[in-house]
């Protein structure tokens, strides 16, 4: 074998050398023979002649020697490639269509795959990710809620199932150094977490347990995204300092781009320092932590869950009033939780792209079949000249391989552009998408796609060839042969398959479209037109108490309200539909205490300024709005939403009632309800509005100050059609306090759009794939019908000559198309209904079996197909019987 490979290699890479040596060897032989003959008495010329005669044809033996070196098939392939290239050059239209179809199909599939690869498949950088669990506290109404700090410490210290437990809290500081202050989204994390995750930094070091010690040097890690965006990937930032919320920290490391945590952005990561936290021993303190743990070897997730749950029950017995509402733990594999929301969407996009490619390939297979049919005569001649069937099949396969390779290479280019377009469309909440590279998996995928395409396009005609008697074709001039029947049957089935696939895609797009329409027509509970929003965060150092924040508000409010075109301006702690912001508290009606502690109701919790409701267009349904007089010296008041009023005050008006709210680290406190406002969809448009409870800014509890400092929005209602106010707004804020980090200034309409971004993304993608599929299927149908007509020109001529009306001929052709269409649609509906379960979780307000959507898309497909049939059949109408009969 190795000798064979060596000789093959030599033959290939040292061609000239081999030829020279061969010539020299044979010359040496002739020379020796000549000398021998001369010695035996012949004269020089005679000896030369005799030697040559005895040797035979040197050229022939040289060729035989070369053949003996092996690797002839390489020459054959080269020959086939040359020949096929020539054939393809002769039909540039076919070549262009084929290559473009493949390039688009492969490019689309590849784009989808590279997103899937970046988000789902690429390693996260954790060692042994399968033993990492992400842990939430489970409540009756929400399986994914947070733990308090003392609770975390108990789990951490008491469990024996985990090698370590880390805790993570969201942390959204303003960052300032030499550049413009900026709000970033990050986490505070117990410093043992990186050892638990087994994560290596891209540069520098990760956090180490020493960073959690009391009095440790303040440090921070930054994400790859922030590093490239703000620091232009300058490695010198390591060791430099950064100002987070007014506190100077040393940057010790850069996180790798593949790193992500579930539902948390990680632009900055700082140590949590749990032991020195004031909440360390405050049992009643706020729930703000999620946990991550690595299972010890041979401990299963179920065992670990049982163990943590028994710890929870012990704590529950020990502190019954603290564990209100915490009914269990939710433990999920870490990596699955990171991609949980996006997996189904991405996979369905990949499948859709794959289906599109499949339709494209089927189309090409159909076209190649026709070409093979048209070339039967040529192929018959080749057979007659001695080509074997295998050689002919190889020729056809090589031809489709050329198309596939060219198409596939172009597909890679399409992917590069497609990816850019895709990235522009991608909703920003796709984890790990910012760092996005083509790796070997994408290339392997592209190669496999290309191979499949080549086989799909080449196999059908090659198979056909193996079933056809080519001599027959030779005799009959390539018409009406046995292969013709087989070929048109095969093509017919291919087209029916195409129609079926197109219907599946269309049905999916239809369902997504209906869902999208439903979601976007949902009333959010506020009026988003002509509303501007600004997010900012206040430096920790200067804004230590409520008074300082109120002061900031009092300075800024009149300045904003005085800007031209501003009708009202208000402040809110969390904007409706703002991503990844959740804030809720528990409350009780003193006259109706919950029977069990875990039944304590919860509500969304917002701190607002008096004008917020007016600015946001949230209607007052009863009672009054807050006023500037509702301050710390007056009895505490609250406004509730209609949902809270309906759910919890079914018996009477809530106005004038008191509720106990648990918004601080000590005891629940009483507030009086003074107003009812409309319900607002706070987290997304899909889920029904939950109860809301609003407190006035001037009465916010001191424990709420860090929360306010971290996240505050200003909402401004403007007159319609005013030019952008952004520079003035930034100017005013800067004027009041230059240390405040101003985030994005966004119209509320954009915030609503962003809430729909993920839906819009999949709708756009699947929709355009479906449109392309529709077009391709129609083209396929057109091709098969018009090919059939072409084949039957004579038959049509005879029928016309015998008195058939053109209407009858048309009917005949349409019947053919209708059979195909019916078969395709029926199969497509069956497949689509079978697959409906897969898209069920992307539906909103429509069933995944929605008959209306299925009917509409079938109708669209039917109309487009019939139009394709009609265009194709016009040719049949133009058949002149005389010409048709004469064309023999």
């Amino acid at each position: 074998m190795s000798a064979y490979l060596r000789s093959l290699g030599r033959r290939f890479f040292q061609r000239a050398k081999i030829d020279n040596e061969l010539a020299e060897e044979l010359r040496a032989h002739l020379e020796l023979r000549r000398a021998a003959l001369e010695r035996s008495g012949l004269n020089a010329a005679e000896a030369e002649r005799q030697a040559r005669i005895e040797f035979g044809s040197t050229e022939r033996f040289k060729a035989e020697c070369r053949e003996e070196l092996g690797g002839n098939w390489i020459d054959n392939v080269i020959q086939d490639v040359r020949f096929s290239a020539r054939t393809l050059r002769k039909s540039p239209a076919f070549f262009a269509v084929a290559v473009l179809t493949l390039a688009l199909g492969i490019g689309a599939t590849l784009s989808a795959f590279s997103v899937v690869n970046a988000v789902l498949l690429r390693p996260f950088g954790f060692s042994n990710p399968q033993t990492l669990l992400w842990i939430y506290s489970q409540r009756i109404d929400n399986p994914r809620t947070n733990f308090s700090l003392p609770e975390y410490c108990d789990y951490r210290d008491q469990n024996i199932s985990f090698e370590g437990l880390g805790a993570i809290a969201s942390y959204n500081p303003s960052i300032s150094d030499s550049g413009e202050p900026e709000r970033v989204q990050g986490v505070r994390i117990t410093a043992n977490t990186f050892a638990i995750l087994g994560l290596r930094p891209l540069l520098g070091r990760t956090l180490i347990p020493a960073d959690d010690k009391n009095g440790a040097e303040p440090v921070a890690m930054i994400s790859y995204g922030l590093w490239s965006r703000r620091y232009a990937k300058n490695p010198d930032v390591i060791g430099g300092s950064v100002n987070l919320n007014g506190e100077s920290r040393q940057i010790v490391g850069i996180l790798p781009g593949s790193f992500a945590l579930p539902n948390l952005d990680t632009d900055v990561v700082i140590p949590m320092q749990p032991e020195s936290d004031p909440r360390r021993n405050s049992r009643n303190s706020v729930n703000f932590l999620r946990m991550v743990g690595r299972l010890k070897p041979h401990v299963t997730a179920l065992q670990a869950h049982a163990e943590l749950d028994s710890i929870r029950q012990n704590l529950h017995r020990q502190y019954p009033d603290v564990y209100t509402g915490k009914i269990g733990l939710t433990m999920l594999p870490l990596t699955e939780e990171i991609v949980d929301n996006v997996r189904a969407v991405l996979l369905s996009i990949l499948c859709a792209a794959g289906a599109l490619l499949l339709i494209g390939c089927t189309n090409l297979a159909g076209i190649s079949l026709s070409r093979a049919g048209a070339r039967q005569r040529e192929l018959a001649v080749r057979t007659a000249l001695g080509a074997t069937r295998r050689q002919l099949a190889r020729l056809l396969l090589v031809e489709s391989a050329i198309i596939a390779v060219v198409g596939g290479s172009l597909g890679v280019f399409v992917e590069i552009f497609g990816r850019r377009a895709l990235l522009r469309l991608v909703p920003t909440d796709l984890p790990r998408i910012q760092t996005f590279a083509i790796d070997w998996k994408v290339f392997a995928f592209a190669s496999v796609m290309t191979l499949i395409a080549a086989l799909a396009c080449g196999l059908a005609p090659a198979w056909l060839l193996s079933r056809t008697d080519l001599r027959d074709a030779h005799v009959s001039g390539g018409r009406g042969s046995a292969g013709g029947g087989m070929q048109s049957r095969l093509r017919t089935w291919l087209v029916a398959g195409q129609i079926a696939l197109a219907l599946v895609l269309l049905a999916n797009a239809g369902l997504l479209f209906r869902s999208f329409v439903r979601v976007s027509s949902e009333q959010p509970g506020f009026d988003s037109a002509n509303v501007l929003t600004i997010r900012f965060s206040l430096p920790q150092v200067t804004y230590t108490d409520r008074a300082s924040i109120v002061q900031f508000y009092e300075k800024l409010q009149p300045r904003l309200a005085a800007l031209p075109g501003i009708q009202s301006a208000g402040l809110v702690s969390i904007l409706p539909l703002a991503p990844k912001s959740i804030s809720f508290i528990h409350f009780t009606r003193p006259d109706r205490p919950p029977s069990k502690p875990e039944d304590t109701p919860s509500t969304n919790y917002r701190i607002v300024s008096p004008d917020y409701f007016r600015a946001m267009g949230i209607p007052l349904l009863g009672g009054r709005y807050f006023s500037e007089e509702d301050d710390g010296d007056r009895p505490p008041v609250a406004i509730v939403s209609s949902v809270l009023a309906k759910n919890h005050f079914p018996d009477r008006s809530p106005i004038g009632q008191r509720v106990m709210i648990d918004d601080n680290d000590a005891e629940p406190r009483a507030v009086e309800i003074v107003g009812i406002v409309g319900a607002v969809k706070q987290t997304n448009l899909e889920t029904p509005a939950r109860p809301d409870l609003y407190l006035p800014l001037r009465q916010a509890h001191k424990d709420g100050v860090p929360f306010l400092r971290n996240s505050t929005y200003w909402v401004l209602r403007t007159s319609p059609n005013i030019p952008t106010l952004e520079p003035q707004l930034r100017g005013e804020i800067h004027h009041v306090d230059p240390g405040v980090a101003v985030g994005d200034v966004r119209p509320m309409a954009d915030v609503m759009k962003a809430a729909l971004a993920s839906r819009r993304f999949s709708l756009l993608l699947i929709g355009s794939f479906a449109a392309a599929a529709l077009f391709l299927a129609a083209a396929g149908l057109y091709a098969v019908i018009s090919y059939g007509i072409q084949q039957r020109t004579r038959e049509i001529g005879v029928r016309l000559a015998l008195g058939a009306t053109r209407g009858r001929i048309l009917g005949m052709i349409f019947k053919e198309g209708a059979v195909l269409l019916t078969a395709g649609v029926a199969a497509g509906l069956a497949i689509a209904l079978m697959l409906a379960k897969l898209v069920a979780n992307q539906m909103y307000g429509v069933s995944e079996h929605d008959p209306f959507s299925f009917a509409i898309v079938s109708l669209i497909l039917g109309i487009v197909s019939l139009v394709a049939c009609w265009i194709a059949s016009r040719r049949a109408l133009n058949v002149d019987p005389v010409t048709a009969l004469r064309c023999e």
Partner: protein
Amino acid sequence: MSDESAELLPGTLDLLILKAVSLGPLHGYAVLRRIEQISGGKLLIEQGALYPALFRLVRQGLLKTEWGTSENNRRAKFYEMTARGRKRLREETNWWNQSVAAVTSALRARPQEI
């Protein structure tokens, strides 16, 4: 060539070449001479046909080649036996002997022996 010389049986050329080279490295012309010599000049080989056979044996790893100098001081390619070639020669020789014995005994058969 003399008149008694015989056409070569198909398939035997490779065996003869192996035998010839097994006696020591040779260049192409010398292989030819050696076969003539050891067969007593009774086997007729088309001279050019020797070379494809040599190439084939090299590809199969039975012979290896080296460039050297011939007796008339020209550069020439020398063929040399490999271990695999030696093994193959043994096998082929056995096979040949058995076949010849079998065919010979078949041809000697007389009617009364059946």
